[in-house]
């Protein structure tokens, strides 16, 4: 319902940007998807921290699922960003923008998480090494997020918020908030479904070994 509302508001209600025209409406999915990716990676790091600190074994699967979701939303951020870049800047990608490169590094870093995870045998050692890697990635999160605020603005739009509040009209801000809520809810729902599936799969594997 939130997604449909967000889509309706973004396409029909929010005013058209005077400079960019209809393509500016990509903003209502691109930015919420990017923020959701950050949130997923942050959640993965938090679960990794819990695994290392509290020795909570369930946190391993939770951290892994969150990285999985983060990579999917990260890929969507890169694709929607590229489409927006093509219409706004005339190129699909530019290496001169530090924000883009930093987000790509973050995405590739977490994509490599799967290589690390599947190169070791399942067990506590794999859980710990995956957790350390996911936690280390958390260092890149503020760097990537703050790059948009700190870097010199060449092509990438300026941050949405500053000390004076949101840098957009009220209707644009409401639409953005609905889209962000929709994206976070979607990610949370997919995360829970994926986690339930993975837990059921693990229980089945145990049961099969028991019956063998």
């Amino acid at each position, binding site marked *: 319902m939130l997604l449909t509302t967000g889509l309706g508001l973004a396409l029909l209600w929010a005013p058209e940007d005077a400079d960019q025209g209809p393509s500016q409406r990509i903003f209502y999915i691109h930015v919420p998807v990017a923020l959701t990716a950050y949130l997923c990676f942050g959640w993965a790091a938090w679960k990794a921290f819990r695994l290392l600190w509290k020795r909570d074994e369930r946190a391993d699967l939770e951290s892994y699922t969150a990285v999985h979701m983060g990579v*999917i939303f990260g*890929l969507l951020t890169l694709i929607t960003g590229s*489409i927006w870049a093509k219409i706004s800047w005339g190129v699909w990608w530019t290496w001169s923008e530090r924000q883009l490169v930093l987000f790509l590094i973050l995405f590739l870093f977490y994509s490599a998480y799967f290589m690390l995870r599947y190169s070791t045998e399942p067990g506590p050692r794999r859980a710990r090494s995956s957790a350390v890697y996911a936690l280390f990635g958390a260092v890149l999160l503020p760097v990537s997020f703050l790059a948009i605020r700190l870097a010199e603005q060449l092509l990438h739009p300026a941050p949405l918020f500053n000390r004076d509040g949101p840098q957009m009209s009220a209707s644009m801000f409401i639409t953005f908030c609905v889209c962000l809520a929709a994206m976070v809810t979607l990610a949370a729902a997919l995360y829970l*479904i994926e986690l339930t*599936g993975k837990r059921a799969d693990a229980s089945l594997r145990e049961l099969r070994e028991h019956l063998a």
Partner: protein
Amino acid sequence: MSTGEKYLAAAYLVLFAAVLLYVVLIALKLARIERELAELARIAKERAGG
């Protein structure tokens, strides 16, 4: 349809396609789990009966 609108549609379609693909993959995975569970239940029943 202007070029801007085409790119806008493409961006929204990418998101929609990704969510749809994800839901289909999850559905396939759950169907496999259900099949395996049914098979394990059958094996457990046979053992209990035997």
